[in-house]
């Protein structure tokens, strides 16, 4: 017998009783496209307890079909029901799994205040945990100084390569372009007032003191910060962190300390590299725009930019590097073993470390505001 579409028929028997006949395939495949229509047809058939329900003509049946009928019955069996024996179990399942209506959570009374409080609480917890991590790293560093066998040289050099050497290309490209653009824009303005020669001062101080360190640190935060967070996060998910702990190997000493040391060493060097390339870009642009020779540009540089600016740039590199590493490792260690948390942790790590770099730069700028001017 071919399988027919699901159907609802209402007839009136000889004694005046209403009989509802259900027939055809009442399974998910058939109901998928007709659920709404059948639901309203069942509702039109009248209240469950008044009629006789004849379900014997149903050819295919499953939990979905049973639930559809069950719900129009108002979650209880009608007193008069004819049912195939093999379909009994589906209603049995509906009965035993009586749904509990979950009470909606009471709305908060002061949502804004609560959100503010939660925000402050979260931020202060993050800050405390980062401080704690930093303290742990200091203790680890002291241990490493006293016990030379523990020094994680291999991890350190691998991290230097990944964070430093592999970033040379991208930082050079970005630095060069920024130098070119900055030089071009300044040259236009300087030519108006005939102060061409001051291009060296603008570029020198601007790049060596500010742009080099900040641009380079933002690149490293995006590139290596996210990588560190994701790596630690996946190690949490795959229980590698726990495996290290149970072997008595310190996570912070073996994984985090070398990474932080590597960034603290590699980032200042990258800062020098980026600033240097940016100055070359600036010189190229100055030659094209103002006809200033390379020799003229670079020989005027030492006089225009006192040496202390260079050290300021390098120092910023160290500070930003430690910040990036701390934040990346902190968020990496907090990741829970699920995909959502991994995504959120990596995003938060990158956003926080870039923000932290810029905030720290502003603070340093204020502290050293009267240092390094010729």
């Amino acid at each position, binding site marked *: 017998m071919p399988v027919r579409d699901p159907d609802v028929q209402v007839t009136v028997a000889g004694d005046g009783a209403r009989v509802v006949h259900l027939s055809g395939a009442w399974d998910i495949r058939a109901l998928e496209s007709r659920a709404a229509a059948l639901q309203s047809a069942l509702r039109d058939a009248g209240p469950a307890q008044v009629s006789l329900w004849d379900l014997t003509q149903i050819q295919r049946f*499953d*939990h979905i079909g049973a639930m559809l009928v069950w719900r129009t019955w108002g979650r209880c069996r009608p007193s008069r029901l004819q049912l195939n024996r093999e379909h009994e179990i589906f209603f049995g399942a509906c009965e035993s*799994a009586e749904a509990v209506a979950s009470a909606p959570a009471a709305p908060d009374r002061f949502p804004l205040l609560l959100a503010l409080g939660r925000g402050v609480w979260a931020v202060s917890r993050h800050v405390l945990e980062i401080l704690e991590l930093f303290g742990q790293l200091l203790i680890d560093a002291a241990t490493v100084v006293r016990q030379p066998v523990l020094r994680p040289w291999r991890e350190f050099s691998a991290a230097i390569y990944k964070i430093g050497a592999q970033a040379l290309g991208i930082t050079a490209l970005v630095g060069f372009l920024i130098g070119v653009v900055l030089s071009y824009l300044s040259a236009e303005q300087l030519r108006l007032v005939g102060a061409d020669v001051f291009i060296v001062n603008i570029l020198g101080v601007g790049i060596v003191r500010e742009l080099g360190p900040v641009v380079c640190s933002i690149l490293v935060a995006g590139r290596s910060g996210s990588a560190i967070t994701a790596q630690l996060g996946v190690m949490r998910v795959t229980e590698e962190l726990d495996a290290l702990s149970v072997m008595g190997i310190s996570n912070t000493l073996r994984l985090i300390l070398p990474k932080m040391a590597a960034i603290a060493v590699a980032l200042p060097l990258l800062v020098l590299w980026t600033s240097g390339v940016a100055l070359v870009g600036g010189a190229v642009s100055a030659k094209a725009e103002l006809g200033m020779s390379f020799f003229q540009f670079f020989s005027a540089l030492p006089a225009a930019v006192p040496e202390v600016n260079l050290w300021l740039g390098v120092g910023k590199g160290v500070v930003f590097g430690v910040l990036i590493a701390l934040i990346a490792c902190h968020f990496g260690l907090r990741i829970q073993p*699920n*995909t959502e948390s991994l995504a959120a942790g990596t995003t938060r790590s990158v956003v926080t470390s870039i923000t932290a770099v810029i905030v720290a730069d502003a603070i340093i700028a204020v502290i050293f505001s009267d240092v390094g001017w010729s």
Partner: protein
Amino acid sequence: MSGAPVVEVKGLWTVYGDLVVHRDLDFSVMPGEVVSLVGGSGSGKTTLLRQMLGLERPHRGSIRVFGVPLHTCDAGLFKKIRKRWGVLFQHGALYSALSVFDNIALPLRELHAFDADFIRDIVIVKLDAVGMDKRHASTMPADLSGGMIKRVALARALVLEPELVFLDEPTAGLDPDSSEAFVKLVRDLHIKLNFTVVMATHDLDTLVSVSDRIAVLADQKVVVCGRLDEVVRYDHPFIRDFFLGERGRRALSAAPALQTN
């Protein structure tokens, strides 16, 4: 056990570089059966399972599921077939970002046919069917035990009322108690709902207690496929090691089909 086979694999070759995994392999599953695939590590059980699911393409040969050639049919038909089967992955493959409830509700929501209330009722029915308490509905997969993950994954696999269920190592990583309970659950559901089961497994107890037929993968093909007693009588080094070693004898002694021997 009548009608056309639900799964029919013919002349299947799987080749990775120089490595031949399947050589001219034939295999079929009839409606309503529970067929187990056994074989040593690297014998290509999981690969065969993945090919039957359309996740991997065989080098040569055809795979028909519900009579439709999987790798040559058009995308619309393939999509329909995918709604008619359910899959239990080895590690559950629950979506870690979704709660237990949302994991089970997801396939139903994707149909865009039922309202939220209806879906909630169905999910509770399914949770109940696999023996999970309603309390766990809002739990995240990361907070579940291994046995519960398998149960939730089974509920998710069964939520679209599949006619064919694939189980990949259903009891791997479970303790003997939960493993036995899980096998009993699968058997009960199979009797109630009468779906067809294709199962890849290592576990002798599982094999013995639920399979109607056993297919032994060795020497790059299905060397024998039949009832337990037929398989045990077949002479092959893998079968001797697997079924007639000490562990095998212990498991077989519990099998009703062989007690007459």
